[in-house]
């Protein structure tokens, strides 16, 4: 009875859990989420699903959680200060950043060359001012610090020499991607959430081992991959948007292989969409956006439409209209107003609730059959335009190379995968309109937990090599290493990048998955000074993409 995988998804309304083995779902559980006691909700669902399972048979427990998103939404940030080294370029005041910012001089350019040194007197004064104002968490972030972290390191060392009782983090250690404001926001957020995040997972580990669960514990990231808990502690932001990721992974686990699918998650107040193109879930080209702030975190491109089962029906100008407003439960479930759910109940598309109550509520607006059909049509056309807009947005995404432009053809969904509570009632009709096949997996209501259970680890390695400056920078770790002398070819650069990827895998506890690494980008540029080539720049991006653990076999 070994090899059991447990997946738990802590959602906004429900916490779901599943236990799977050999491509089979052994048990499922669903409990209401208590927003102020996530741990209790989580353990409640876990205990239900573990009934009849020996803890020793569980080989992995995976979580997706809204914890970080909730912590950030609760506004835990005022105690983080930013010390910025923006150098020339944009006015730093134009950025929308969390926390109070101090600005000091110094500049590094796109090649990582030091343009202006920092002024230690100025830095000391800024550090003292920050400390004296009462800040004990400080994010030090410089423009182009991922190409050369010198100034950030100098200032962090200075800060710790002045005071030992504060926590100072350099931006390049949080994100090595280019994008100064994102790096600054991510560094501040990381400082703000790391303590409660660590506390939560410490409690969780204790609770799990108290239950005899000694297997690896992993968390789900926004890009649909898992990360061992120990590594996740250092990278708390990676777990934001793991909820939508879980639902996409769930659909991936339950859909036919290789198709272009739209995942339609119909809930009470929103319908969430995600795209799977040729079997690959689409990532948001700009990364995760939280509270209007873009972050250097990979996340799936998802779109939330204001269409849900609780949408209420009203009369406007003598016409029946579906309004994206929740006034309570559907009439068939004991509410007072007619809703989309009532329309679906009346039409027999769902068996939930009281059909007679649905009919009575709809009758207030006109002949119930007519009213119900009008409401369902409105919901369908809104979702349909949402899907079209999503494909259009994908088509319009900027590309920087000719080959990328060539790849984008006209594409339309082959399959609609319905997950969530309202899936089975609305998605089949939607598929008919779009001329696509429909798939409502049998475990659709707990697809998120299933997604977490069967997700495999993901990680990326982005290497920027400058042979003239003899530097090799790894974006994910912010490390800039000196490069050995000698000629380098593109193949040689890829070998270096793969080696750094293997090292990073080992650090994260993800050994032996090199065979699944995809070379997303491998580019070489000549650096020309005057009329001669003086060096090369190589940009290599390697990914181990999201996917399913091999223990999971696809339904077809």
């Amino acid at each position: 009875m070994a090899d059991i995988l447990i997946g738990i998804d802590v959602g906004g309304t429900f916490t779901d859990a599943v236990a799977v083995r050999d491509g089979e779902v052994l048990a499922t559980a669903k409990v209401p989420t208590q927003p102020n006691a996530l741990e209790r909700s989580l353990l409640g669902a876990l205990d239900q699903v573990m009934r009849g399972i020996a803890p020793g048979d569980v080989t992995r427990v995976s979580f997706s959680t809204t914890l970080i998103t909730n912590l950030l939404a609760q506004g835990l940030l005022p105690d983080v200060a930013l010390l910025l080294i923006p150098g020339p370029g944009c006015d730093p005041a134009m950025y929308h950043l969390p926390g109070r910012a101090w600005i000091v001089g110094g500049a590094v350019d796109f090649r990582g060359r030091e343009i202006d040194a920092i002024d230690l007197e100025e830095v000391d004064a800024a550090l003292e001012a920050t400390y004296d104002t009462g800040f004990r968490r400080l994010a030090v972030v410089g423009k182009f610090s991922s190409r050369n972290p010198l100034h950030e390191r100098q200032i962090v060392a200075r800060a710790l020499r002045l005071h030992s009782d504060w926590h100072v983090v350099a931006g390049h250690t949080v994100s090595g991607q280019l994008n100064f404001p994102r790096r600054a926001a991510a560094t501040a957020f990381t400082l703000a959430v790391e303590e409660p995040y660590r506390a939560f997972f410490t409690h969780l580990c204790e609770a799990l081992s108290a239950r005899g669960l000694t297997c690896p514990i992993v968390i789900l990231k926004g890009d649909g991959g898992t990360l061992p808990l120990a590594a996740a502690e250092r990278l708390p932001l990676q777990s934001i948007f793991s909820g939508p990721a879980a639902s996409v992974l769930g659909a991936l686990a339950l859909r036919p292989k290789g198709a272009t699918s739209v995942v339609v998650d119909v809930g009470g107040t929103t319908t969430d969409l995600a795209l799977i193109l040729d079997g690959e879930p689409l990532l948001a080209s700009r990364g995760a956006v939280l509270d209007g702030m873009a972050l250097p975190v990979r996340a799936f491109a998802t779109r939330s439409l204001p269409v849900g089962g609780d949408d209420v029906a009203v009369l406007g100008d003598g016409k029946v209209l579906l309004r994206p407003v929740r006034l309570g439960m559907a009439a068939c479930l004991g509410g007072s107003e007619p809703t989309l759910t009532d329309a679906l109940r009346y039409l027999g598309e769902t068996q939930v609730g009281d059909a007679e109550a649905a009919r009575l509520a709809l009758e207030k607006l006109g002949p119930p059959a007519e009213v119900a059909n009008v409401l369902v049509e409105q919901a369908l056309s809104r979702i349909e335009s949402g899907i079209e807009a999503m494909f259009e947005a994908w088509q319009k995404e900027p590309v920087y190379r000719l080959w990328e432009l060539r790849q984008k053809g006209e594409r339309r969904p082959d399959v609609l995968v319905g997950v969530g509570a309202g899936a089975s009632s609305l998605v089949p009709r939607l598929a008919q309109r779009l001329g696509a096949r429909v798939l409502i997996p049998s475990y659709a209501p707990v697809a998120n937990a299933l997604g977490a259970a069967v997700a495999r680890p993901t990680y990326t390695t982005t290497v920027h090599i400058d042979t003239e400056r003899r530097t090799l920078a790894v974006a994910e770790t912010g490390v800039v290493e000196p490069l050995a002398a000698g000629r380098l070819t593109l193949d040689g650069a890829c070998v270096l990048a793969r080696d750094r990827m293997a090292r990073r895998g080992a650090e994260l506890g993800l050994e032996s998955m090199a065979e699944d690494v995809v070379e997303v980008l491998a580019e070489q540029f000549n650096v020309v000074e005057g009329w001669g080539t003086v060096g090369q720049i190589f940009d290599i991006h390697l990914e181990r993409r999201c996917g399913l653990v091999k223990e999971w076999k696809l339904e077809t």
Partner: protein
Amino acid sequence: MRRKDGKLGLLFFPAFDWAISPTHPEREERLLYTRDQIVEEGLLDLDAIAEYAPRQATDKEIARVHICVPDVAAQATEAHRVAAGGALALADAWATGEIANGFAIIRPPGHHAMRVVHGNRGFCNIHNEAVMVAHLRKTYGIRRVAIVDTDVHHGDGTQEIFYHDPDVLVIGLHQDGRTLYPGTGFVDELGGPGAFARNLNVPLPPGTGDEGVLYVLEHLVLPVLADFKPEVVINSAGQDNHYSDPLAMMKVSAQGYARLNALLAPNLAILEGGYAIQSALPYVNLGIILAMAGLETSYVREPDYDPEGLRTSARHMAAIKETVELLQAIWEQPAMMRERFYPDLSGETFTREKRIFYDTDNIVELQEETVRLCDACPGWVRIASRARGGVFGQRAIWSMTIPLLACERCADEAREQYWAMVHTPTAPYDYLYLQDGPADEVTLKH
């Protein structure tokens, strides 16, 4: 429709996989550092900026402007189509009111490409702005257009394509043609008889800096634009007036470029040349983007920026003021000046001869261009062109262009001439083209 408030549309297509040759200035790396700068500054995350993706310009869209010899496929590679398609995508976004203004950072450039294209000259095959103007006219009914070319090299392709078009005002600011490629762009190149003073060249002495360029803008360009009242202002935004450019000798800074674009407030800006890819482009592009997005530009500064060393000398300022005065006088009294430039216009047509050199492909072209003089429309344009060199040896073509707004008499006359030529078995041409604007089609006969 078009609006004044709203976002800046940014279309960035660096063509990281296209070059003329590995160390040619027009190579893959050209916009690499600009990309790094734009991304690191987080510009694409700002609410004031929306990023756009290019599309491929079609044969038809390119053939509205160019007579590609023998056909569009032979002259327009995929990279050229995407660069022109980038300008088109941005023009659509502007014309439909999605954006307040747009900046297309695209390559390869286009402003040296002329109507007839036998090959590549000045790194250009396809004229991105001209293809965009033809699209704006055809699709959105725009008539009056102003193109302000701020590349250091004279935009001789822009001048040539619109030389007989009274609805397109072309103003070029560039380093004096006596000292720089392509060796043209003097004050006396003022437009054809039917479009006189619609082509204004401001040759600037080598060593001109921000002060000199901004003087021309404030004292000539802006007042002339205010008079002309174009429906769209396009900036051919070359960046090689920069003090660090390796191919030219000017002293304009990123601050100067930012100020220029803030003053000019173009609806659409299209990148042209600029080959100081590390010392200028990242900063100049940033300055232009911020200025066009209405954001603070005062923090933009090159690492070696030294305003004192970049001053325009008093002697240069005096020369620039003299040029500006001359052009002001021409602009204000075009009829009188036209008489002096074209003293004998008694016939129905006006003919000029041109010798065109394609530096990149080493082709020499001899052209005889004839324009129909008409009071009701811009008149047809007929070109007989012989080219030799390059990879094809020798070629002779004959073309007839009917402008979009041609009157019926001119259009009929032009079509008659074309078909008469087609039916002349002894005509000494390899290809015969009819570029029929009103019918929106191109006919090619061998």
